């Protein structure tokens, strides 16, 4: 299947929606992130409950760092978080070992994709992976990596090269497991200026895309920072199948600057609307977004980021209903 053609051929929503399936399954986040079968079942449940253009696996941005040796905190209600740092200088960076794919929970995530692919047969299935700068930030600490970019760029670039190498292997394994693509989340790069992103993030993302993307295996680049607006030409030159933006930017402004063959996705506020909104408020936000963006053929409505685990299904259902009604009348 040509994924890009498929995405452009439909007028429907594709939110980053997977964790809220836990409330339908009656399990905790902690149980989910440590069990591949539960993950596959949750993805299947979400697929059965929604008319999403594709199934999108869990945006758990601790998996890859954990494989490198980072400590991770698990809780019942929240997506796991990396604690502390394992790289603080060039020496640490040089001695950092690139883990084998399958280490820690990466094997579990690959197995989950394998199982989910067998269960979900009516739409593409996208896996999730972290972006290279965001992974480097978790290995060095997200605040410290900002200083290191100035004080010790060699250290950052050494980690980036190792992170990139691992992400490439991980994406290839996800592809082999049956995924039709991967959402690469690079939120930390959204805090950088265009110059810094061009040094510390985009070339590494481009390398990943060149290594793993094919017509039948999409890379969707996710960056939910507000600085993206200043680097759109650089971002679009990555060559990803689609680009996913957060709610800190105006989606219509993005689309105005995007070539018509570049798919842009976004950006209903996940916390403000899906988690803390009401059916009325999400209907209004969705309609407003569609009013400003639906005339762009390269626009796919989505959430601005990963929808939080305990978001209201009333709100999620209302989001899909609003999109369906809107395009029905379009």
């Amino acid at each position: 299947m040509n994924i890009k053609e498929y995405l452009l051929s439909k007028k429907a929503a594709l939110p980053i929606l997977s964790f809220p399936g836990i409330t339908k399954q009656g399990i905790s986040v902690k149980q989910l992130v440590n069990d591949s079968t539960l993950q596959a079942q949750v993805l299947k449940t979400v697929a059965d409950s929604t008319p999403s253009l594709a199934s999108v696996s869990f945006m758990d941005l601790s998996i890859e760092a954990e494989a490198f040796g980072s400590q991770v905190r698990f809780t019942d209600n929240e997506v796991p978080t990396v604690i502390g740092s394992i790289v603080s200088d060039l020496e640490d960076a040089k001695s950092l070992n690139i883990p084998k794919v399958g280490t820690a929970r990466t094997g579990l995530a690959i197995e989950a994709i394998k199982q989910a692919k067998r269960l979900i047969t009516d739409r593409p299935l996208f896996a999730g992976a972290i972006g290279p700068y965001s992974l480097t930030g978790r290995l060095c600490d997200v605040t410290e990596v900002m200083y290191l970019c100035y004080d010790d760029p060699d250290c950052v670039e050494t980690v980036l090269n190792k992170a990139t190498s691992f992400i490439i292997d991980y994406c290839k394994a996800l592809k082999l497991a049956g995924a039709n693509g991967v959402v690469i989340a690079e939120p930390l790069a959204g805090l950088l200026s265009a110059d810094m992103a061009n040094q510390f993030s985009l070339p590494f993302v481009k390398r990943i895309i060149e290594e793993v993307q094919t017509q039948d295996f999409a890379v969707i680049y996710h960056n939910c920072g507000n600085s993206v607006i200043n680097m759109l030409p650089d971002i679009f030159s990555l060559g990803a199948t689609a680009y996913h933006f957060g709610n800190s930017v105006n989606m219509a402004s993005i689309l105005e600057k995007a070539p018509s063959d570049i798919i842009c996705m976004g950006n209903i506020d996940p916390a403000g609307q899906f988690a803390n909104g009401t059916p009325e408020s999400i209907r209004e936000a969705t309609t407003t977004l569609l009013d400003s963006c639906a005339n762009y053929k390269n626009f796919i409505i989505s959430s601005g980021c990963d929808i939080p685990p305990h978001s209201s299904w009333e709100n999620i259902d209302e989001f899909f209903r609003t999109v369906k009604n809107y395009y029905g009348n379009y």
Partner: protein
Amino acid sequence: MILNEISTALQSGKAKIVKELVAKAIEEGFTATQILNEALMPGMDVVGIKFRNNEVFVPEVLIAARAMNQGVEVLKPILIKEGTTSVGKACIGTVQGDLHDIGKNIVKLMLEAKGIEVIDLGVDVPPEKFVQTVKEENCQIVLCSALLTTTMPVMEDVVNAFKNSGIRDSVKIMIGGAPVSQEFCTQIGADYYTADASEAAEVALALCQRRI
């Protein structure tokens, strides 16, 4: 003029140069208060405005604030000798259950750049810790940060902890973080919601100066 040079070096995050220029300015006869108020703080104000306008980003703010701190370190012994006190005192923390700290760290630096003394309680801070710190340190402002939708309700626990301790009226509670909004602030009975670090610093300064 050397004060302008300090401000410019600070805006570029050149910590070592800021430190040297501040020492040189003292030698040239500028007072510590002059250097603070006419070079370091205005330099950081420029960075804050540019940050709000998306002209500079998080790393630039962090290194500028670090340069300012280097300059302040040189001035500190003189300021203490002169009896110069901070504009006000605040404590800041990411609420219990939440380990995200980059937003909190930037807000802290922005407040310090306004001359406010800030006690950093770190991450995963229980409500009682905020209360205890305010009691022990006489803070006028409490700043609570949260990134997660599941931890933002802890901000209400912080407000209630102050109510229960009987000192709610003696402190202003400010909240911020990606999932937080003005509506939520009103709902839980906190005093101020600010959308970014620059605005948080301005509100905190106005509170310390009793302008609001």
